[in-house]
């Protein structure tokens, strides 16, 4: 059917050889999210990591306190479980000797409502907390830069909470509590839902940036 009454669309503005100067300026200001500082770096989990992770998660110091909660699924079943719903997942490694210090994961992304879940596992919970926190900080920064999430949730059983409770109000907010949700060692423990907000992150991340740049001075 002829459509003579509709006007032609306005012409697209012609751009010069150098493009729109405003876009050029923005592009120059853009910095790619970093997966490295002077102390550590993040790299994607590869199949060669699986045997190590399987042993850590089923038999390491945190086995009963973390994701599997003491269960030991078969190896193939574990591989399928650990990749389900994962958006991004990295090993945290030390620059000086490439040793693995932890694992960070973003999963259950909800792009409609703008949130995702985070998980972090330290392979040596009694070891270097500063390195692990730096790694988590790099990862949160990376996730906020790559996707437009408003908030990132962290779920934790209350028996793990004292390891990072001082961050409440500074790095995260406590958004929910399920009473006596977990069983461990003869006791019932609450389940806490924490959230890191995009709007709060620039201020919260300053500590991480300070340490990460020490060697740059």
């Amino acid at each position, binding site marked *: 059917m002829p459509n003579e009454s509709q006007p032609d669309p306005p012409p697209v503005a012609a751009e010069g050889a150098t493009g729109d100067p405003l876009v050029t300026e923005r592009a120059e200001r853009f910095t790619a999210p970093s997966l490295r500082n002077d102390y550590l770096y993040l790299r994607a989990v590869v199949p060669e990591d699986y045997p190590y992770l399987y042993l850590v998660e089923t038999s390491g110091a945190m086995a009963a306190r973390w994701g599997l909660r003491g269960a030991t699924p078969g190896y193939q079943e574990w591989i399928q479980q650990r990749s389900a719903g994962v958006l991004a997942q990295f090993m945290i490694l030390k620059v000086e000797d490439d040793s693995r210090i932890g694992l960070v994961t973003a999963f259950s992304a909800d792009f409609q409502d703008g949130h995702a879940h985070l998980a972090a596992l330290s392979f040596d919970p009694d*070891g*270097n907390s*500063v390195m692990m926190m730096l790694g988590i900080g790099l990862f949160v920064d990376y996730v906020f830069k790559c996707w437009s999430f408003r908030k990132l949730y962290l779920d934790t059983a209350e028996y793990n909470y*004292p390891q990072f409770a001082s961050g409440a109000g500074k790095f995260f907010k406590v958004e929910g509590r399920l009473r006596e949700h977990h069983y461990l060692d003869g006791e019932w423990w609450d389940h806490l839902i924490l959230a890191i907000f995009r709007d709060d992150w620039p201020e919260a991340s300053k500590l991480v940036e300070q*340490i990460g740049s*020490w060697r740059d001075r």
Partner: protein
Amino acid sequence: MTDSGNGAAWRRYIDVISEVSDVSVESIHRDSSITRDLGLDSLAIVELAVALIEKLKAEGMEKALGSMDWGKVTVGELFDQYLAVR
């Protein structure tokens, strides 16, 4: 408690520890554990590390702070590290 021969440095150092941990100066001793006795968790240790560098100008501690086994470190051991590099 003061650290013999380094009284002024010890007091400045303990003031920083006290401020970050919210534990009184009188209750902090050389053998106090950073985690068990002062109750610093992972994020508080990050704050302590930054405070030591920024307030004591102890920039030589950067590498040590990043590689310490914080679960075992005492206040005295951290002070010795500070003295060694300042």
